[in-house]
């Protein structure tokens, strides 16, 4: 009986997810300890409960229905994204949230899951070929449409995560190396453009060499290179049109001494919080950085400071290890699945979670720019928590049905 369960029930994903959510609740409680009487924490507990149910329900759905429902769900998520642009509430400069009465949410969180499923459903069709330019464009479009809608909110962070999912999915689905390089080179050049002329030229060089090595057709390679250049040159123009708070974040990342009291303040205090934690941390609810509110809005984007400061290297490593274990498990599930839709979706989900982890923890430790994206399972926020737990539910589902074609 137990063996049967082990065979068909994904205890590993369940354990890792519950452990991370529990660490998240402890952290949110600590970060909001002095603010009001625990209302934030209580809300998060409620979201975690709902998320847990959503995860189990997702895990038990028939795989074939999921595959059939992928496009309707995707269409629904696009409608929500459009509605939120029209009637959404504006919080800290973005129109990303809408609510009816006391309930509400961010449709961009649901859109992530929906886009992964739609992309996987499209790529797993027997008629789809990644050598066919038209099919490749459709795959792009599936990700691009919600990305643009989210960028219009404007929410740069979520857009980045969204787009980053495309690369591993295409790679897994069998795209040629050239296709991947062609996608990657504009990103490299765009990043280079922000660092000044020398870095710009250097990144163009790298992109050129990579495109040359992986080329199959000289003309196509030349077009890709031209596009890369165009992207790099227009980055500066896009930068000018960004909301000032995001410009400031990019500036501060490039040069933290520019505004030590402004946008750089968060990163500085976050580094101090994590660094002062040492090996074993200052003890739960004893972190002076956390308890004295040195890090504004810590319970959302800078939640990683709490385990870092209060549980030290030991605690922070546990978070990283659990996260990494969940990501590796995601790749394993993808490898085991006989069903292409399930396999591709598993890679997409893993890609989204990995990007979140890298960017969020990276910015908390001052090695990546502060683009406001939450740490899955740990940060405060209902829609994100539910969406993330549903993604784990999907992994559990694919694990159970891994032998199904």
């Amino acid at each position: 009986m137990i063996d049967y369960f082990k065979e068909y029930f994904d205890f590993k994903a369940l354990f890792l997810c519950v452990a991370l959510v529990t660490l998240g609740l402890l952290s949110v409680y600590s970060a909001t300890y002095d603010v009001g009487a625990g209302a934030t924490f209580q809300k998060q507990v409620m979201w975690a409960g709902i998320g847990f149910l959503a995860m189990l329900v997702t895990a038990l759905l028939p795989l074939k229905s999921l595959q059939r429902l992928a496009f309707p769900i995707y269409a629904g998520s696009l409608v929500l994204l459009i509605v939120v642009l029209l009637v959404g509430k504006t919080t800290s400069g973005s129109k990303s949230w809408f609510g009816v009465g006391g309930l509400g949410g961010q449709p961009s969180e649901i859109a992530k899951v929906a886009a992964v499923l739609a992309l996987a459903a499209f790529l797993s069709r027997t008629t789809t070929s990644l050598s066919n330019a038209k099919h490749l464009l459709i795959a792009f479009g599936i990700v691009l449409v919600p990305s643009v809608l989210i960028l219009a909110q404007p929410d740069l962070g979520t857009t980045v995560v969204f787009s980053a999912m495309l690369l591993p999915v295409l790679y897994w689905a069998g795209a040629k190396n050239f296709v991947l390089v062609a996608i990657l080179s504009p990103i490299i050049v765009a990043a280079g453009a922000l660092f000044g002329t020398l870095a710009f030229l250097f990144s163009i060089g790298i992109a050129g060499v990579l495109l040359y090595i992986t080329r199959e057709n000289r003309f196509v390679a030349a077009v890709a290179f031209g596009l890369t250049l165009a992207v790099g040159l227009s980055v500066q123009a896009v930068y000018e049109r960004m909301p000032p708070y995001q410009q400031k974040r990019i500036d501060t990342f490039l040069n933290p001494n520019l505004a030590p009291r402004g946008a750089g303040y968060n990163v500085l205090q976050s580094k101090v919080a994590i660094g002062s934690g040492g090996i074993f941390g200052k003890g739960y609810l004893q972190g002076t950085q956390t308890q004295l509110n040195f890090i504004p809005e810590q319970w959302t984007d800078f939640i990683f400071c709490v385990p870092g400061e209060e549980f030290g290297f030991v605690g922070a490593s546990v978070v990283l290890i659990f996260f990494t274990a969940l990501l590796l498990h995601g790749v394993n599930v993808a490898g085991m699945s006989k069903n292409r839709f399930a396999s591709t979706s598993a890679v997409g989900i893993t890609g989204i979670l990995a990007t979140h982890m890298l960017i969020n923890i990276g910015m908390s430790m001052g090695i990546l720019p502060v683009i406001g994206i939450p740490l899955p399972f740990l940060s405060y926020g209902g829609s994100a928590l539910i969406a993330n737990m549903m993604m784990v539910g999907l992994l559990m589902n694919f694990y159970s049905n891994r032998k199904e074609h």
Partner: protein
Amino acid sequence: MIHDEYFGTPERRKILTGIILLIFAVLMVRLYQLQLLYHGELDKKSEENSIRALVKEPIRGYIYDRNGKMIVDVGPSYTVMVVPAEFDRSNLPFLSSILEMEPRAIEERIARARAYSPFLPSRLKRDVDIKSLATIEEHLPLFSGISYQVESKRSYPTPAHAAHLLGYSREISDAQLSQVGEYYRQGDVVGIAGLEARYENLLRGEKGYEYVSVNSRGQIIGSFEDGGRDVTSKEGFDLILGMDVDLQAFAESLMTAHAYGGAIVAMDPKNGALLAVVSKPDFDPAIMSGVTPAEMWGRLNTDESKPLYNRATLTRYPPGSTFKMVLAAAALEEGIIDERYRINCSGGFRFGNRVWKDLHVHGSTNVIEAIQRSCNVFFYQLMFKVGFEKWTEYGRRFGFGKPTGIDTGEETSGLLPSIEYYDARYGKGKWTAGFTVSLAIGQGEVGVSPLQMVRYIAALANGGTLHQPHAVQYINNKRVGKVEEIPRDAASVGLSARTMELIREGMRRVVQEPGGTASLARIKGVVSAGKTGTAENPHGEDHAWYVGFSPFDDPRIAVAIMLENSGFGGSKAAPLAGLIIEKYLYGQLRRPTPNAAPIKRDSTKAITQVILEH
């Protein structure tokens, strides 16, 4: 698929696994750097970060009367603060003797402060007297973790109490703290009753923060970043009331001088602004500011005369004859009678085998005379002509049986009986028309508050507009630096000019003509109108009513007076109305008043003592 051979190949699986492990390695290395390599440096930075955010309390908004006189002020109050992590328990006995607090009480306070934050100062005792404060200041180096801050408390510069209208603010309770969310913390003051509660969000202002560096003993060694991150507190908005505070004080003194219990409500009939709201017995709101001794609280709550009870908005007595204008309005407006319609009052009215008596034999009476002389027989008969349903409808038009929408405190809807009400109460068909006879003269089950009454009279005064009664007229919005008027509701009663004219003529005669029941409300040089009433009280002496307005041609004040257990309205309530109207219209009394109490605040007597006649 054409690229089948590349889909999820073991090689690609290895690459993805490798990328994940690479991300993990990068983050682990960085974690190692921060927490182990740079730990010493960053830990020192965190220690240097011994910065306290001191809360700067905003000044609560002031309350002014219609003439700009300050009714509610703020004065300084000293609060002793504690930082739990730095408090030294060996100081407990000494501190206990200075603050006159039980050591256990202090420890409990500190435990609760610790739950809020071990590192931030919390209030230990509010409103500490200046002598204790001096002792603490002298020994401050000894008391680690103890400090004090200057806060504000309410003070009341005028002799008026207006306790039920103004309400009061107190330290927030634990129960409230868990409800109201993130702005408040232990020890904060919050409006509990009256205007202080209703306008809490406007009055309170916004807290400010001052960041200071402290040494390891918690003593302030300087400002943090030269105050660059400080947030200044924002003053609360001021309220500008419709009240005339001199009139309020005068009305209170009249009630006190006569030792009356009951209520006086005066309203500006043009817009519904409340000129005075008196409920007696009352209390001095000054005893609620700062720290109210428990013993005082106990007395306020258990006193038999119920000083906390707002008789102006919460009592629900029958209106007596003051309600006759409702029935008259229904009869005239529906065209059932006109001024030529007369009955012969023989001093009694027989219905079935019961007889309702009148006080006098009025002889031939039309509607104007019936109001003037308060002829019961006329209205008994009229009730059957008009019908119960219409009576209820017109009562509703004048705002009875529902809340008025006043902007302060609680209020009663009163009770306006209707067919549905009787059906529900006694069962369909189990009540008869006889039940409605006493309603004709405002007796029986009908119940009204003095506030509802003044609004009804104001509508008769202003030609038929039912205004939302309100204490606050303007708000001094300090954020935009503008005085803003608060929009209020108004509805039409829907009576023709002719109906109005006849009813008002009856009410004028009540005061101004011989044979009227309220000649004692007459004022030299001004024509007034009004109506007396007596609410039958099965539990004791009847309650007296008087309602009226003045001047007759261009009314500037409407007033409703209800005196508990005081008998007939014409003899006791009407003279008070005369004095109040005179005071308001002329700014002072133009006649000697033998019986007015001195108008001054007597802080030794917190509760106005009232000898109630039972």
